[in-house]
């Protein structure tokens, strides 16, 4: 993943700006939830909500909206810039090669890389990079905040998350291996298609069309079986993850509900816990898929890393 580090380092100012806005965004969300909790508790105790409290809530909501817009813009800009740097680095690598090295390049495999891996990486950067960072910030901040509000409820309802995390870590490694194998088979198959064009005269002169068809079908079969194994593995492991990931919310409703009945916690706090559980257990629930996507991204990065030249000096944009 040194390539990702280099790419992010090149645009460090944009990355820091985006991360700072992520932190500000979650701080505002927690502030809004705190206000909401107070409002629910006041309503529950038949109290009167003052105009100052309503104005303060409206200002917080508007600030949340504004910061969400800025976050989306800055993170989108950063990701697009990083993806552009990656493509330029790929192009730069080929311009720095000597003629014999260029002559030995398998253009089919390189085109496959450009069309598949680099496209996938660009899509990942655009759709997931800051969403990952945002999730991490949300998870940490919300978890700490919940611990301050009700440590017992926080620890109990998140207990299964520890096991789910371990399980997802294990499954993601298995999924990653399967993804890597299917990508290799895919590159081999695409490389073979390019070779067909090169060997065409020999193929005609030596009447080798049948032989090549058999070889190509072998490559196709290898890719097919690798893809089937990948999808089977993903489906089996991730379906169990999805079931396990429901446990935290069930525990929250069970334990939190009991605490409200006992009077050891307020209805406003429980509402906020349920409202924000997505930031903790929700992120956990999505983790198997996210990790699988990240593993694929990581495998893609490993494959293209030798073909990308990134100059480490920072660039102004």
């Amino acid at each position, binding site marked *: 993943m040194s390539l990702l580090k280099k790419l992010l380092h090149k645009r460090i100012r944009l990355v820091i700006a985006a991360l700072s806005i992520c932190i500000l965004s979650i701080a505002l969300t927690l502030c809004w939830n705190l206000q909401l909790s107070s409002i629910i508790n006041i309503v529950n105790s038949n109290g009167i909500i003052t105009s100052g409290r309503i104005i303060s809530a409206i200002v917080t909501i508007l600030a949340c909206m504004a910061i969400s817009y800025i976050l989306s813009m800055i993170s989108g800009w950063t990701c697009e810039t990083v993806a552009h740097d990656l493509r330029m680095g790929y192009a730069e690598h080929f311009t720095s090669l000597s003629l014999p090295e260029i002559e*030995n390049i*398998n253009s089919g*495999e390189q085109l496959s890389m450009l069309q598949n891996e680099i496209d996938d990486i660009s899509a990942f950067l655009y759709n997931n990079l800051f969403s990952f960072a945002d999730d991490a910030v949300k998870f940490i901040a919300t978890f700490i905040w919940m611990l301050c509000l009700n440590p017992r409820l926080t620890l109990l309802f998140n207990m299964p998350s520890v096991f789910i995390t371990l399980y997802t870590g294990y499954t993601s490694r298995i999924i990653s291996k399967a993804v890597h194998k299917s990508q290799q088979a895919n590159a081999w198959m695409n*490389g*073979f298609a390019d*070779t067909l064009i*090169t*060997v065409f*005269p*020999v193929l*005609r*002169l*030596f*009447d*080798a069309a*049948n*032989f*090549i068809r*058999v*070889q190509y079908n072998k490559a196709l079969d290898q890719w097919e079986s690798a893809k089937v194994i990948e999808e089977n593995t993903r489906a089996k492991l991730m379906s169990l993850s999805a079931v396990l990931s429901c446990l935290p919310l069930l525990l929250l409703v069970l334990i939190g509900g009991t605490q409200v009945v006992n009077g050891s916690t307020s209805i406003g706090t429980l509402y906020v816990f349920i409202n924000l559980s997505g930031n903790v257990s929700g992120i956990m629930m999505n983790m198997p898929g996210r990790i699988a996507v990240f593993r694929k991204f990581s495998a893609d990065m490993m494959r293209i890393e030798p073909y990308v030249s990134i100059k480490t000096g920072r660039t102004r944009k």
Partner: protein
Amino acid sequence: MSIYVENLSFAYGDKQILHGINLNVRNGESIRIIGTSGCGKSTLLKLLAGLYKARDGIVEVQGERNPDKIRRQVSVVMQNPILFPASIKDNITCGHSKSTEEIKRACDAAQLSDWIASLPDGLDTHVGERGGKVSGGQAQRIAIARAIAKDAPVVLLDEATSALDGDTSKAVIAALESLTKGKTVVSVSHRPDDLMEYNRIYWLEGGKLFDAQQYKSNL
């Protein structure tokens, strides 16, 4: 007559490459065609190999005029040998059923046997993408072994000795001698050399074929 060419002309679109070529090569005779880069040597060879169809004129190889049938009568060895991404054995047989004896004979004749014996997987060794796992000289000899295994009566050599270096040239020349023994040979090259002997030498210029001796004396 092994090769009979009469009034052959060929053009890529509007660009005329060959004009009124006439050529007769008897069975077992070997000829060499020399010409500068881009003069149409490879095009002529492709027409003789049945890779291109003659539009004007006649190309007859071993009595065949149909390109599909001509291809069965010829073996071609090129300057840059093209290998399939498969094993050495598959590259020699091209998927056709050949006995172990036939393959061994082709390997011996192409000076490959010692090298193959030193490989852990022997004939089943994969040559890699575009023959990337073997050296240029080894790839050239595999291509020659493939041509020997085909056992066609006509052998066409396209700059087959142009890129040889000191270490590999002896083995490749020996392999080419085995391939061309008793066959009709047409070799094209951009420069004359004395690596192999030929019955006649031609000069190709401006799309026309001249007898080299006559051409020299005219100059």
